[in-house]
Structures are given as structure tokens and as C-alpha cells.
């Protein structure tokens, strides 16, 4: 394999990397020029052939999603998901702040492919620097005729608007995002209809993630073969596997020496990522648990760290999936009861409240863990937690969206893989020193 060269992070950290001037000097917007000379169907086919799968968590093939739009649609919207909120995940923020034009270029290419004249970037409010970088980038693009009327003399019009969220995790769920953009509470919609048929303002809509759109830019610029030269081909034993191609932004945080965002070919193992890039586990300790792709994906044990972080790897060892590829490392001095409490509290706080199993289930799992951490747990609480976790989510079929699958998975993994941590804590009757327990606040 040739030496890997970062592409998504190539310009991040360089002087004025967010400016249009330096972006163009580095060859920026030539991919858009190329795309505008192609037909929309040719652009879609290019992205499809490259095997690009969505980077936001679900891993759905991007080009295929674009083909689901009705052929006779007159108004189509692109909703860009920049509501990055999954615990551990910050890769989109890094590229929005450091190199926003690769994203605007990807948006313009995608809009050409799906024949869309209006794109909305739904940005979580907390990302002030991203907001300012994107706002400037969009203004500069209008001034340079890269956005607006008749972009680059192509006869195509494109408007891009920034829309700021208001601190709700559920807005990262694509139909929650759509409801929120429409000015309503972000209650996810029942699917079907999927957004490609009826989405934003009841029009056919494509929802794509920031990193996904940045990949679109580089696929048009560098070609299908370049993208497919990295990553993992489809598993021959699984006819439904679309492979895991291309570069990926891996976030690493928690108990490591060098937390950060690392761009690597899809499929690096968790162990190599932690030891070779993130400087190893801090204080000379060993990893006890590693979250493979954002909190909702569950935990890898130390023995499972040779799992490749591609779309299939984490699922083979009982995790929910690759998710956002955000790795969080927990060292061997940490108790999993406290880690799981933190996870359950997050999902309980962020449940939108629409579906009863999620609203109640996440709240009760948090309360049960609070009781255990207060020294009042009973051994039967462990199976009670599992019973609740097994009953909530779209996998058992009791909720509209996947938030509670993401809440349940860490519970299932923690209890199945670290049951003795729970039994020992309950038997000891000790009280946690976690300060938040005393401060309350759900």
C-alpha cells in the first residue's frame, strides 16, 4: 500500500486555511468546475462508483441515496447535517473551522448532482468558530460567483444558508433535523416516507453529513480509483456489504496521551489508532474499554482492540456499529458503572420525549444506575437494566428513531462484557465520588 497522504485534513492548521484565496491557490473549486461540465447523473454515478458511504453514523451509500429522489421533482432541498453532537465526536468541527471551502465545494457539487437550488446547513449552536468560518466562506463564495445566480457561468443557481440549532442532540437525527429547520420541536418523523420522497417543507430532500460532503469534493477532484485505493473491500461472505472505502477522520479522546482527530484509511484497528497515533493510554495504564464510534456504539474490551474500525468491524464483536468513528478510551482504573451512568444520563437528557419507551426507559436506566452508585443497588438491578435496554429502540420496534438503540447499546455491552464491575459495586454497597450525583440536574 502506498504511503497514506491526508486529504480532508491536508490544509487544516496552515496559515489562512479557511480563506477562499488560499483554498483556490491549493486547487480549490476545480472539482466543482469539473462537476459542472458533467451531467447530474454522471456526478451521482461517480460518487456511487467510488463506494462513498455516509460518515454521519448510519453508513448509507451516498450516491445511492441521491438516486432515491423522484425523477420528476421540481423543488429539491439539501439539508447539511452539521449538528455534530454524539459524545466523543468532533471531526466535522475540525474541518468546518479549518477548511470550510472543501465543504462548500462538496455542497455545490452535491446540489448539481441532485438538481437542487437551495441548501441549508443545520449547525449546532455551540460551534461558534464553525459558524463564523462557514459564514465568511459563504459570503466569499457569493462574491466570487461560486454561489448565487448562474454559478461559474453554468446557468445553475445555488443558495446556501446557515441555520443554527439550539442545543438539542436529537436534531442530528435526519427527520428531527428537518422538523427543527421547519421551526418546530425536533420530533423525528415516522418513516416511510423517507426524506428523499418527502422531507424539508414537504419536498424531496437529501440529508448529508459534513465529512461526507467533503469526501464528495475529493472524489470529484481525485477520482474513483483514488478513493477506492484506501479502505476495505466488501466482505465476500456478505452480499449486502458495500465495503468501507476512502479516508476517514477518526477522533480519539479520553484516557490517551495525544487526543485528537486523525485522518487514516478506513479500517485501522482500534489498537493501532490508540498506540501509533494517539500516543497510547495515559499514565502507562492499559485500556479497559474503548468506545469505537461515539457513545451509542457500545464498548470494545482490551482483547477486542484489534477490531478494524470499518463499517463491519465493531458489529462483529457486539458493538452497534462504526457510528461516527469517534473513539473514547477508558483506562483500567475506571469503573464501568460510572462510565455507563454518564452514558445513560446523556441519552435520558437528550431523549426528545416523543416515544414513551425511550423517554421512560432512558430515565429509569439512569435512576437505577444512580441508585447503584449511591450504594443502594440490588443484584437484580443488573438484569432489570438489561430488560429495559432490550425493550427500547427501533431494533425491538418500539420507537420512531434510533436514539434509544444508542442509549441501550452501551448498557447491553457494559453488562455483558463487564458484569463483575456491576456485581462487585452492588455487593460492596459503596457510594460513588462522582460529584454530579450530588449536584443533580437531569
Amino acid at each position, binding site marked *: 500500500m502506498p504511503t497514506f497522504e491526508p486529504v480532508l485534513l491536508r490544509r487544516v492548521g496552515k496559515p489562512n486555511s479557511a480563506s477562499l484565496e488560499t483554498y483556490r491557490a491549493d486547487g480549490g473549486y476545480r472539482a466543482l468546475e469539473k462537476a459542472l461540465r458533467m451531467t447530474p447523473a454522471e456526478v451521482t454515478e461517480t460518487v456511487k462508483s467510488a463506494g462513498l458511504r455516509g460518515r454521519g453514523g448510519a453508513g448509507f451509500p451516498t450516491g445511492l441515496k441521491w438516486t432515491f429522489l423522484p425523477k420528476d421533482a421540481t423543488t429539491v432541498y439539501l439539508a447539511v447535517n452539521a449538528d*455534530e*453532537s*454524539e*459524545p*466523543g*465526536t*468532533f471531526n466535522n*468541527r475540525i474541518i468546518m473551522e479549518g477548511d470550510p471551502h472543501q465543504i462548500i465545494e462538496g455542497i455545490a457539487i452535491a446540489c448539481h448532482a441532485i438538481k437542487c437550488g437551495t441548501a441549508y446547513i443545520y449547525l*449546532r*449552536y*455551540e*460551534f*461558534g*468558530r464553525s*459558524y463564523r468560518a462557514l459564514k465568511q466562506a459563504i459570503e466569499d463564495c457569493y462574491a466570487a460567483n461560486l454561489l448565487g445566480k448562474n454559478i461559474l457561468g453554468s446557468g445553475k443557481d445555488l*443558495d446556501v*444558508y446557515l*441555520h*443554527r*440549532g*439550539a*442545543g*438539542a*442532540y436529537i436534531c442530528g437525527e435526519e427527520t428531527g433535523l428537518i422538523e*427543527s*429547520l*421547519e*421551526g*418546530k*420541536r*425536533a420530533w423525528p418523523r415516522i418513516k416511510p416516507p423517507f426524506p428523499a420522497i418527502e422531507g424539508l*417543507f414537504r419536498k424531496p430532500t437529501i440529508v448529508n453529513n459534513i465529512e461526507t460532503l467533503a469526501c464528495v469534493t475529493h472524489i470529484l477532484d481525485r477520482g474513483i480509483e483514488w478513493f477506492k485505493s484506501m479502505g476495505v473491500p466488501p466482505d465476500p461472505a456478505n452480499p449486502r456489504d458495500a465495503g468501507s472505502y476512502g479516508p476517514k477522520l477518526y*477522533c*480519539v*479522546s*479520553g*484516557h490517551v496521551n495525544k*487526543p*485528537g*482527530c486523525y485522518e487514516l484509511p478506513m479500517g485501522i484497528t482500534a489498537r493501532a489508532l490508540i498506540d501509533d497515533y494517539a500516543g497510547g493510554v495515559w499514565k502507562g495504564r492499559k485500556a479497559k474499554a474503548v*468506545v469505537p464510534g461515539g*457513545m451509542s456504539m457500545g464498548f470494545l474490551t482490551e482483547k477486542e482492540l484489534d477490531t478494524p474500525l470499518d463499517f463491519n468491524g465493531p458489529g462483529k464483536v457486539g458493538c452497534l456499529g462504526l457510528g461516527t468513528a*469517534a473513539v*473514547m478510551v*477508558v483506562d483500567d482504573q*475506571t469503573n464501568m458503572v460510572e*462510565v455507563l451512568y*454518564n*452514558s445513560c444520563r*446523556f441519552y435520558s*437528557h*437528550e431523549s*426528545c420525549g416523543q416515544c414513551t419507551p425511550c423517554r421512560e426507559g432512558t430515565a429509569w436506566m439512569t435512576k437505577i444506575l444512580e441508585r447503584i452508585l449511591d450504594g443502594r443497588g440490588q443484584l437484580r438491578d443488573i438484569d432489570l437494566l438489561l430488560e429495559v435496554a432490550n425493550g427500547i429502540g427501533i431494533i425491538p420496534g418500539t420507537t420512531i428513531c434510533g436514539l434509544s438503540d444508542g442509549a441501550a447499546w452501551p448498557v447491553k455491552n457494559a453488562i455483558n462484557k463487564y458484569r463483575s464491575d456491576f456485581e462487585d459495586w452492588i455487593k460492596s454497597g459503596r457510594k460513588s465520588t*462522582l*460529584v*454530579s450525583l450530588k*449536584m443533580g*440536574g437531569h
Partner: protein
Amino acid sequence: MSFLSEDLRQKIIAELPKYPTKRAVTLPALHHVQDVLRCVPLEAIKEIAEILELHPAEVHDTMSFYGFFRDPEHKLGKNRLQVCRSLSCMLRGGEEVLAELCQKYHLQPGDTTPDGKFTLEFAECLGACEGAPCMLVNDECYLSLTTETASEVIEKLGS
């Protein structure tokens, strides 16, 4: 005589051309109001509803869903501080930073200092885990904090 200033009304009206429905301006309008007034009073809800041709209950329904917006009884201080409590920050001492700041400034999470200088809250994952523990000050994130460095940030805030 309207409750919202002419400047605020114009800011809200200027959002309208971006969207095919008026209702989509609800969140932008609430942000404009809270940026200036540090809360969203009922009078503001009614006037937003009037501009957007909605029932005030519809605006209130949206506003109350997002914990971000505050009513006049819980008006924000001049600055809003949010200390992250999610996993990567917890693993690196975020909880202790929040607790020690609460103790130092005699606040509970969510409270505002008596002089109105700042409101101190907890936040769920702020998406800056490479710099855990982190704290958002208005919409600027400060990374790799200790109680000491967080206090320094607070001392430098404008009152």
C-alpha cells in the same frame, strides 16, 4: 408601541427570504431575541408569532422544546458558561471543574451570579473532546481546562 425594538423586528424580518415558510424563522427569531434580552419574554413570543403568522402557542411550543432558551424568571447573565459533563470530559476531570466553579462562585448549575455577570451551566458533549475538559463561553470553546484556568477565563469576562 411594540415590545420588540425596531432593530430586533428588522433582524427577524430579514430572515424571512431564506425560507419558503415563515414558521422556519422561529429558531432564528428566538436567537435574535435572546441574544439581546438574555431571555424570551411572553410579549416577545406574541410578537414573533405575529410576524411569522403563527399562534403564540406554536412559538412557545418550539421554544420550550430547546433547553437553550430561557424565560424571564431564569434570565441569562451577560455571559453564558457551559462546562461539559459528557464522557471524555468526565474522564479528564470535567465534573470536578464544574463542582469547584460552583463552590467558588456560590452557584448551582443553571444559576446566574447576583451581579448578572455570568450564568454557569453544565452542558452535554460540546464536541471538543480533544481538549477535555472544556467549557463554552458564549459560543467560544475553551479547551483543556483546570479550575484555575477556567477561573482566569471568568475573571477576564466583561461585566
